[in-house]
């Protein structure tokens, strides 16, 4: 019994020593790593504003998501949101507004950012952030330019910094870098009515379909042909998204762009010509208007947009086309023996020769949405 008791006491003492050693080891490691962690300063962007002025001399163009949703500024808020923005193509030395935060308020930071993937809007060679600048919005000029053609671009910025203590010894420390990713559109020129504040849902199509173009004529050519060839829309002359506000005593006509985009399915000639007008105006191309050709008339062989029909002849009450001094018609192909999408065609010459067979052919004046429709004699709008 006595022997067991002594052994037990010895065991307990031994165990206590072991415990103490382990505890000391743990505490040492904790202090070491904890200390190391506290010594490594970091700085990161908390907010980035791309569009902050009423114009777009230095910053991004004002855009919105759709009819009901604006794009909130700042577009980038860490861990919260990351909205797209838009620039005029070739715009150089853009400025952004950034708010930084760090884990160490006793450092001055020399911050730089470079584009490490994608096509960016510029780099920051170096900017000094003092402790008093933290959590304040700072204007930063970027070096470089956005692409000189239309497109939709993604890029990643790598934010690097060297920290310099505010007190001696002034040993510089390399901070851990941080990446941010962004999406932006490049437009031909300042957007115009009826899409002077473009919807990103429209730019998603306009900037992709006109990707790489940088002249007005090439843009209109691309938009018209891509709308016909690649939109996935299907012609249906029994419906339209261009509607009066009441029957039979209408006071305005509305192009229901929101419904048209949400459905993205059936389209008539009014839908096609009006959407072409919206696409071109959203990226600042010369505005294509829309023009009604009143019938009724029989057509020659046409191939309406989509996959439902193939080549047919038909009789229309009217037809609607895009218009910029000549016809831009994304709703049909004509001339079956040598098919083409009507782009920049004279309405009374080749276009009529290849489309019209017999009946009434009465073109009305062109207009764009927001103006009075000369056929109906009432104002128009987009919703």
């Amino acid at each position, binding site marked *: 019994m006595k022997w067991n008791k002594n052994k037990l006491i010895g065991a307990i003492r031994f165990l206590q020593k072991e415990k103490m050693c382990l505890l000391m080891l743990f505490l040492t490691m904790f202090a070491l790593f904890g200390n190391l962690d506290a010594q490594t300063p970091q700085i990161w962007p908390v907010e980035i504003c791309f569009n902050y002025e009423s114009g777009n001399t230095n910053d991004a163009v004002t855009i919105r998501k759709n009819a009901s949703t604006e794009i909130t500024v700042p577009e980038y808020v860490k861990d919260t949101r990351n909205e797209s923005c838009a620039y005029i193509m070739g715009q150089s030395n853009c400025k952004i507004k950034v708010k930084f935060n760090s884990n160490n308020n006793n450092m001055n930071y020399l911050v730089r950012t470079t584009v490490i993937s994608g096509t960016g809007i510029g780099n920051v060679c170096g900017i000094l952030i003092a402790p008093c600048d933290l959590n304040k919005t700072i204007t930063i000029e970027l070096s470089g330019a956005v692409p000189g053609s239309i497109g939709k671009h993604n890029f990643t910025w790598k934010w690097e910094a060297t920290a310099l203590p505010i007190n001696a010894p002034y040993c510089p420390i390399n901070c851990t870098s941080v990446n941010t990713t962004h999406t932006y559109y490049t437009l031909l020129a300042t957007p115009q009515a009826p899409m002077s504040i473009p919807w990103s849902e429209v730019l998603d199509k306009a900037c992709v379909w006109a990707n790489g173009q940088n002249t007005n004529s090439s843009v209109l050519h691309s938009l018209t042909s891509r709308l016909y060839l690649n939109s996935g829309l299907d012609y249906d002359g029994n*419906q*339209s998204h261009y*509607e009066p506000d009441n029957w*039979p005593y209408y006071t305005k006509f509305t192009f229901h762009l929101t419904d048209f985009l949400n459905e993205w*399915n*059936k389209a008539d000639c009014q839908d096609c010509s009006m959407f072409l007008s919206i696409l071109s105006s959203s990226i600042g191309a010369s505005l294509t208007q829309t023009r009604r050709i009143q019938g009724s008339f029989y057509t020659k062989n046409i191939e309406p947009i989509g996959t439902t029909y193939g080549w047919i*002849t038909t009789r229309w009450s009217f037809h609607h086309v895009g218009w910029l001094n000549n016809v831009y018609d994304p709703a049909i192909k004509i001339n079956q023996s040598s098919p083409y999408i009507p782009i920049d065609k004279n309405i009374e010459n080749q276009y009529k020769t290849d489309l019209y067979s017999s009946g009434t052919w009465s073109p009305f004046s062109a207009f764009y949405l927001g103006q009075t429709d000369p056929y109906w004699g009432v104002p128009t709008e987009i919703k």
Partner: protein
Amino acid sequence: MKNKYFVVSLSIYLTFVYSAIPQNAEFKKEINPINIDNIKIQDIDLIDNFVLFHERVIKPDKSGNNQIMQIWRKDSTNTSLKIVEETKQSIVNPVGSSCLQKWYREGKKEKIEINVIICTSESEMEKTINLFTNQMFASQYDSTETPIIGEKSWIPKSTTSQMDSYSLMFKASNVFVRIYINLNNYSLDEIIKISKLLARKVENNIIKEQFK
């Protein structure tokens, strides 16, 4: 198979209902524009999962001194229909009423549009008919030799017929109705049948309103 079951069962139901109404009933009694809510479709129970996403109603109020316009919209199938715009304006002369409904299935690739217009005069009705059959849509509409529904009906010319959508219009008393249907994975015959059944539903509402 399920589609055909609904079409057949609704056909039988509507035939029973229609046969209960005097066959020589004429569309003489006019519908009061105030009662457009009794004419419009309340639910589309003949096709699964169609939901009313948009409704615009313009009608005189009960006093007859004002015209009310209400627009109802739904953002998704899980949210409720809510009023997004409402206006009221005073009127001097009697006005008609109109209702536009847009029904969608999830994804919005299939759509049903129903227009109901109640006119207060013959000239207003003629203007409405001309508007819909000759001016609003590129497709030409022909008057049918014998009415499919109501007193007079119009359907698209065959040369412009679609394979996945159909539209028909009709007039019954002082009411003009347009039905447009776009469905996927249905034959054109089925779509035409459903269009006629929907039109029949509206026609029955008109008849019931006349006999009140």
